[in-house]
């Protein structure tokens, strides 16, 4: 049996680095990474078959439901090689597959010597996987190409092996064929990891240096810090020090994940595990920092990571104004686990008190919102997402705008917006549809390459603002779901951008203002005025709804004054019923938002700010 029981396997802190292999898995959502990971846990027998469940390593409800991984995981797997018969320790570092979490991927890669490039052999490689593959190659990781789901009838292993070989520069025959579902090829894959990926190198006698590649807040334990030891060793009850802050911490526990936390005596060179120091805030145990020994500190830190910068901003407001303190608490709690989330209080005349939040991307935004609603039972309104604009005024002053309502009103010299380089992979039959969409979104074609006979890689530069709203939904729907997208920020560029305000009875509603390209201002104005016309009930007086650029009106609708709002009959038996209705309406009135003198139901805000995809989702949820 190639599996080794944990008790008999080489123990943490006393495992020879030559017996260790650290690897990451690079894969797209749906390409079977979690299933393969489940299979590895089973075959190496670290999880008892009775305790096995699907997507074992995905801990959050959202991760399981959506089938995505948000946080990294590192699991210690003992394995006896089928090639040389020796015992090894494999540390599998599970990584998220989505573009928004590229920064998480880069951390996992920095903790590994090799990576499995896992591709669904019925679909081929996806844009985000390609981006992560390049990242791994830049980090000089040994890449093992693996085609998954060979059990599927639609599998085309030859075609996609050729594709991978071309991308990596290997032979198609170097691609391993596995099925996470049946387990076929998985023991051979474990053997190849041992054979191909180099063992970690490090100086066991040097002062301790360990890289923090993740930091997770746990309600019971406080912050759990995931580290990869490079030099020296960390021992339980050591005093450790964070290099960047110089702060000393008591080490309360050290251990490995197997895949439940397993305390150990320590961690040696090349080992991957966790530390618990009792700190309560992940910012005190920052990802990318170097952990060293307080009594024998290192002088040179490990190369860390770039701090992820928020790219997309949106206002989050509680539907019920009284929930504002709850929202603050929920955000504080979420930030314990998500250093990439930034927020600051803001207030909107229309929506009351809330927070302007910065996210890494759209998925990050969606997940944060979903977690706030789910874990803290909040109902939220989010404003339309926007990017960061740099506005240069005539007087030479620069203004950074993260909220359209802050767009300066004075004379503007120029406005710069973030630009991304995007990569789209799709079957070649959709080239026309994709190019049309990108043109509409102010894209500039950079180039196009055929990955195989019928699959292309199309590269465009696009303003980020054009993809934050509903680009991905549109891309998916115009390619029958086949296209995949990846993007990276490449800087800012000047654009002919204007702020469109939406006015109710002459008063601008901050929540509806948007910064758009001048050519699209009219369409935005028409769309919003028509939406609001349908959503706002008739009032005591006529309510004009206008869209304006500065003082110039570009679109207008009128809500006519209400003429009848009375029940004609009110006799003895009607009085109780009518009073009860009035009491109910009193409550309803409290949920109305006043915009000047206009009463706007909250549902109107929610609906006006929603994308088509949101509306479909809401409909589906009601079913």
């Amino acid at each position, binding site marked *: 049996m190639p599996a080794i029981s944990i008790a008999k396997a080489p123990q943490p802190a006393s495992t020879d680095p030559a017996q260790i292999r650290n690897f990451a898995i690079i894969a797209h959502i749906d390409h079977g990474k979690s299933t393969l990971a489940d299979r590895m846990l089973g075959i190496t027998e670290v999880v008892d078959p009775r305790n096995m469940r699907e997507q074992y390593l995905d801990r959050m409800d959202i991760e399981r439901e959506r089938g995505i991984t948000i946080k990294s995981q590192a699991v210690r797997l003992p394995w006896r090689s089928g090639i040389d018969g020796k015992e090894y320790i494999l540390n599998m570092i599970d990584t998220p597959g989505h573009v928004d979490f590229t920064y998480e991927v880069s951390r996992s890669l920095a903790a590994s010597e090799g990576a499995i490039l896992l591709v669904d052999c019925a679909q081929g490689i996806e844009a985000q996987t390609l981006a992560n593959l390049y990242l791994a190659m830049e980090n000089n990781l040994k890449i093992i190409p693996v085609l998954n789901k060979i059990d599927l009838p639609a599998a085309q292993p030859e075609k996609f092996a050729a594709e991978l070989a071309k991308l990596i520069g290997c032979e198609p025959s170097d691609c391993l064929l596995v099925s996470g579902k049946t387990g076929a090829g998985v023991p051979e894959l474990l053997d190849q990891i041992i054979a191909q990926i180099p063992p970690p190198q490090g100086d066991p006698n040097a002062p301790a240096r360990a890289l923090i590649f993740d930091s997770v807040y746990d309600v019971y334990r406080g912050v759990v810090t995931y580290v990869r030891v490079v030099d020296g060793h960390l021992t339980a009850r050591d005093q450790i020090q964070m290099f960047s802050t110089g702060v000393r911490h008591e080490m309360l526990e050290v251990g490995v994940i197997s895949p439940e936390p397993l305390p150990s005596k320590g961690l040696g060179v090349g080992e991957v595990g966790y530390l618990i120091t009792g700190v309560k805030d992940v910012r005190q145990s920052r990802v990318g920092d170097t952990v060293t020994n307080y009594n024998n500190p290192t002088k040179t830190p490990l190369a860390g990571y770039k701090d992820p910068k928020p790219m997309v901003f949106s206002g989050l407001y509680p539907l019920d104004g009284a929930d504002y303190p709850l929202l603050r608490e929920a955000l504080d709690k979420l930030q314990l686990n998500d250093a990439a989330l930034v927020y600051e209080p803001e207030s909107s005349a229309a929506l009351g008190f809330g927070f302007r939040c910065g996210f890494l991307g759209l998925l990050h935004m969606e997940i944060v919102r979903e977690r706030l609603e789910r874990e803290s039972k909040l109902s939220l309104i989010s404003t339309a997402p926007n990017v960061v604009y740099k506005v240069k005024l005539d007087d030479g002053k620069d203004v950074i705008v993260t909220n359209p309502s802050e767009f300066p009103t004075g004379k503007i010299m120029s406005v710069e917006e973030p630009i991304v380089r995007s990569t789209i992979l799709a079957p070649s039959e959709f080239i026309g549809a994709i190019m049309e969409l990108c043109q509409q979104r102010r894209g500039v074609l950079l180039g196009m390459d055929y990955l195989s006979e019928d699959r292309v890689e199309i590269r465009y530069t696009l303003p980020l603002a054009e993809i934050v709203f509903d680009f991905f939904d549109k891309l998916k729907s115009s390619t029958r779901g086949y296209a995949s997208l990846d993007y990276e920020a490449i800087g800012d560029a000047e654009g002919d951008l204007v702020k469109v305000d939406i006015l109710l009875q002459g008063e601008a509603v901050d929540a509806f203002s948007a910064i758009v390209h001048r050519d699209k201002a009219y369409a935005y104005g028409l769309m919003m005025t028509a939406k609001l016309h349908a959503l706002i009930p008739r009032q005591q007086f006529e309510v004009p709804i206008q869209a304006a650029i500065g003082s110039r009106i570009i679109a207008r609708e009128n809500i006519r004054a209400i003429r009848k709002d*009375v*029940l004609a009959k009110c006799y003895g038996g009607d*009085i109780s019923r009518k009073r009860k209705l009035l009491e109910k309406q009193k409550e309803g009135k409290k949920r109305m938002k006043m915009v000047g003198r206009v009463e706007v139901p909250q549902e109107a805000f929610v609906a006006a700010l929603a994308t088509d995809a949101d509306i479909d989702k809401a409909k589906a949820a009601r079913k």
Partner: protein
Amino acid sequence: MAAIQSDDISFYVHIPYCVKRCGYCDFNTYTPSELREGGTLETVSFDYIDAVLRELEIAHLEAPGAVPTIFFGGGTPSLLPARDLGRVISAIEERWDLSPACEITLEANPDTVDAQKLKELREVGFNRISFGMQSAVPHVLKILDRTHNPESIARVVQEARDAGFESVSLDLIYGTPGESLEDWKTSVESALSLGVDHLSAYALIVETGTKLAAQIKRGDLSMPNDDLMADMYLLVDEMCEASGLSWYELSNWAKSGHESRHNVAYWKNANWWGLGPGAHSHLNGIRWWNVKHPNAYKNALINSQSPVQERETLTPQQVSDEKAMLSIRMNYGILLSDLTVEQISRVEGYRESGHLDKSRWSEGSLQLTPQGRLIADRIVRELVV
């Protein structure tokens, strides 16, 4: 503001029977055969009045005092023989102090009365009669499921006068699917030409569960349009005023002295006792209502049990909300001195927009203009927040 304390007690008598149910009606009413297999009106009527008389015994213990008004509504009270209805009036007369000026009203369907019956009704004590005319236009009556011939209204009004009724009223409905402003004008003209003392005009409410609601849902008929109904309301108000009937409650107009005193008692939150299944009562800040089904009602009383389904004791807040809700519908309106500064500031805009009468405001009251009455519920919401 406490509920009005008074010894007066008005009576409402519910007669829950109809020959057939009209398409728009969601009232608590039944056809005799729905209540008893093979039942006829005569057989159910007598038993029913027995039960009402039993409830009167309870009322006498709890609410002695003078009786200013009695009102028989339904259902179709005019379906019952005059002598059965008269048993109730006599029973009240026996136990309570009934002034000669007591207003005793009967709601009547024009199909169910003739000169002889009207004479009998007058003899048992009725002095006011209100006919359900609804419309003078055949295609509108048809949608409403009303069976009477429009011409018969003139006849029954004249016969009621001849029988000696002191006050004659007509009910109209506007906003029926398919009814034009011109149709409505025809109906109002027709009603006013008869020289009646009182007119009620109700906007049609499409109640869920009615045949009409189902027809609209299926798309056979279209929902009445609010703007058209507003025009219809303004028209009836203008025509009534021009014929000497003054507006006194949202949906009611009368010659001076012919206002329905019974209904005014409701709107002033006076005390009244509702007899019969589903009937509501109000006594010094307590409201209750009886079980809804006639058979359940009869059984309770036969077994010497209370027919009350539920009671509520109004909180001071509820009393004040009700007062605002009811007073705003009346021609006397609400005294500004009864409102807080904050309430006044919330409704001032309605004065500027022409929904509140400016000259009455300067005299110290909030009174709705015809346009204001059309949005009375909205203005009340501002007052009770």
